[in-house]
């Protein structure tokens, strides 16, 4: 890392000079070019959200089928949805009250008249995109509680889409339709507000794989570390509170630079929050060992509670110490608990810096909003993985299945990723600002960090960093995925 660092002065104006990367033009009309899944998604998603005011009765897919795309790879016209699901009156003789209107046995009228091609890669892409269309229809059915219709479509989708396909779109459909099937079943069963089961080992292993094959985690870690380092400038007693530490992959790099600071190393305390006490202890052992080898004076406090559930008294801050709070947002499980309680905790702690990395999609709100947002978001990530790794790559499968698929399931579940029904903030950045926290612009050094990380991951032309509004956003092509920002407590400003 680097030698001289500027002291962060919170009221300094942020200089928005972009370095080589175009700043996103939100809302401008973008020329559709290329059959890239995520581009298609955004276009169709906009159509879908424009149409979503219509209820199931009035919903028509005609606006989609009348659009003519001209992708650069040749002719593609989204297929006319000549699909008909015949509704025959329930005549199976069972006669139970909730008589599902099913189709009866005859073959060809049952399913969509979409034709499925196989084996040729162009057809893979074409099939992938037609599946996406069916998926979206299904989402609309769910959003208006038409579970029978949704179930029929899901029976088809889950039989056709393969998560090992060369087409990223098809992989996305495989996982999305599974997530929706899960949701439909849990809706039938009731009891949707119960906490979901967490499968820690598989998550952590997949998380590490993700860290290896993709720059997103490193981006989050290193840009945050840079901001924390700057906040700790010339401070001797420092305290990091990690709201969801997992294995603490982030911290060794920071320890290293703190230990080799020209001013001399600080005394470092770490409060680590997480789901399992055993996992926290293990993380603590690893980090303590690492700190010891660096000659860094280190204390570790595990707190096996969520920030939104913990008694603030359990988070001890000492006089004279500089506090940094860090949070990497994800949808693997509910790491935080109630948002407003966590916010209150932050206000009480009054840290010198809060480093926040957010996923650019809505974590709350109505199902259809979450569906469109996450479809766009995950299509982008799947694209980025597909651009660098073969369809048989085991790490890619691991990440897609154990990490991304789990997130997708949570995003689409009843109650959203928290599954708890708690009110979620639309955007943490907005909320922090509302509560009087002042934004600390991400520095030029943070940008440099981000740049260095991208250089580790070919193809560098695919991943993009955007800076603006004091934040750093890492994405794939024009789609931003993770936004890093830093904040300081209002109390410290007085």
């Amino acid at each position, binding site marked *: 890392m680097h030698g001289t660092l500027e002291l962060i002065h919170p009221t300094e104006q942020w200089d928005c000079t972009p370095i080589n990367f175009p700043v996103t033009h939100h809302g401008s009309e973008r020329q559709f070019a290329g059959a890239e899944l995520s581009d298609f998604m955004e276009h169709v998603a906009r159509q879908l959200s424009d149409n979503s005011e219509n209820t199931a009765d009035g919903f028509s897919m005609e606006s989609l089928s009348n659009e003519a795309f001209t992708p650069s790879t040749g002719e593609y016209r989204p297929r006319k949805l000549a699909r008909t699901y015949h509704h025959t009156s329930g005549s199976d003789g069972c006669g139970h009250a909730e008589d599902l209107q099913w189709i009866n046995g005859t073959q060809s009228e*049952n399913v969509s008249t979409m034709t499925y091609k196989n084996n040729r890669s162009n057809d893979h892409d074409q099939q992938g995109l037609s599946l996406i269309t069916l998926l979206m229809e299904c989402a609309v059915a769910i959003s208006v509680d038409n579970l029978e219709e949704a179930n029929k479509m899901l029976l088809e989708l889950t*039989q056709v889409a393969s998560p090992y396909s060369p087409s990223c779109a098809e992989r996305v459909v495989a996982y999305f339709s599974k997530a929706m099937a899960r949701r439909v079943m849990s809706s039938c069963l009731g009891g949707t507000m119960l906490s979901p089961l967490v499968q820690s080992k598989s998550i952590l292993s997949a998380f590490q794989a993700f860290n290896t094959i993709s720059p997103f985690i490193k981006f989050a870690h290193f840009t945050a570390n840079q901001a924390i380092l700057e906040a700790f400038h010339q401070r001797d007693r420092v305290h990091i509170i990690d709201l969801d530490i997992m294995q603490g992959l982030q911290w060794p790099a920071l320890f290293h630079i703190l230990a080799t600071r020209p001013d001399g190393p600080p005394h470092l305390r770490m409060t680590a929050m997480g789901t399992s006490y055993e996992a926290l202890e293990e993380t603590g052992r690893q980090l303590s060992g690492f700190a010891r080898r660096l000659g860094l004076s280190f204390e570790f406090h595990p707190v096996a509670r969520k920030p939104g559930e913990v008694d603030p008294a359990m988070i001890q801050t000492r006089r004279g110490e500089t506090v940094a709070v860090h949070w990497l947002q994800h949808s693997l499980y509910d790491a935080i608990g109630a948002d407003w309680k966590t916010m209150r905790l932050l206000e009480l702690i009054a840290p010198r810096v809060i480093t926040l990395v957010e996923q650019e999609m809505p974590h709350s709100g109505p199902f259809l909003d979450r569906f469109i947002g996450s479809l766009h978001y995950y299509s982008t990530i799947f694209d980025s993985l597909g651009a660098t790794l073969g369809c048989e790559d085991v790490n890619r499968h691991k990440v897609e299945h154990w990490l991304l698929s789990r997130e997708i399931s949570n995003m689409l579940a009843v109650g959203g990723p928290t599954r708890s029904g708690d009110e979620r903030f639309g955007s943490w950045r907005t909320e922090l600002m509302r509560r009087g926290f002042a934004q600390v612009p991400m520095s030029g050094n943070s940008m440099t960090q981000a740049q260095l990380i991208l250089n580790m991951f070919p193809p560098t032309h695919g991943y993009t960093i955007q800076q603006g509004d004091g934040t750093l956003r890492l994405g794939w092509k024009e789609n931003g995925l993770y936004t890093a920002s830093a904040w300081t407590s209002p109390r410290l400003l007085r």
Partner: protein
Amino acid sequence: MQNSSYHQTTASSSTSTDPSASEKWAEKLLRECAKAISEKDSSKIHHFLWMLNELSSPYGDTDQKLASYFLQALFCKATESGDRSYNTLISVAEKIHSFDTARKVILKFQEVSPWTTFGHVASNAVILEALEGEAKLHIIDMSNTYCTQWPTLLEALATRNDETPHLRLSVVVTAATGGSVMKEIGQRMEKFARLMGVPFEFQAVNCGFSRLGELKREDFALREDEAVAVNCVGALRSVSIKDRNGFLRVIHGLRPKVVTVVEEEADFTSNKDVYIMCFEECLRFYGTFFEMLEESFVATSNERLMLERECSRSILSVLACEGDGGSGECERREKGSQWCARLRSGDDHFMPLNFSDDAVDDVRALLKRYQAGWSLVTSQGDDASGLYLAWKDEPVVWASAWKPSS
């Protein structure tokens, strides 16, 4: 469905433990769920279905896959929507079915596992021996392996010392081989026979979907001077249970020189009225099958996925569909010993043919070509004659040969 207190209290306490951390967690949960269904314990049913819903995935490890596919069957059973779901699934499967995909799947399967080739090798050896010296051969093929059995037989016929006989192959059209698939198969077989220099005739015998039991002697257009062999690979189980003995009589009436029967070693028939017993057998068999698939294919294999999806339809049919002529009849497997009893009974019965030492050697040589874990078990005792393919010492496929009593 109503929610219940059992469901809530137990589930909330389960957040601290991870049930999927223990070995074979899927079997335990599935078993509890099936038990709850057979006892009609609504709150328990909810609880276990919910847990399985959370933990299962058709794209994860074997436990997760079993959980996913069995969950679907149990859910349909509990909501009495099995028949309708099954029909939809079959429609979708037929829609996406093509010769190319079917061929790709079976060839890959045969490359990594002797599951189907075992029966082929054993049957071909017996057929060749039984039809030795005959000039006109007629093989009636009822199988689910898309005629992948016959190229090696054609080769053997072509390379025999004596004059190459004329071979007529009648393939019974099943659900899987309908339409363009059969046409494609026929063309390829004719081409291959030409290459081998074997005088050859191909005929498709239509019997309507899954209506094997309705075939009659006339459907086969038998000729006076031909020697008939009937080959049933995975076919008998698709005959309705009540029609099985009758179907065997029809075969008897064809006066074949040899009948080869290959079936998977599972019993979903004798226990069909005792849900929990049928469930256990289903779990045992498919648990073995899925485990075998996982160890034989790479993790990201589309072919394996297709095989798994096919299994899921069978599982649904056995565990959630109504029997007695409905969709629940289609996949009721019986064990070798049970088929033996059928074949041996009645006036028009059959007598077992032994597999020669050469035949057994052929099978052993085949198994050597695959990864470890496979073995050949020759049956002991009078209960069942034939050969068994075993995976980790568990018999999984049964191959047998018969001749009609005169």
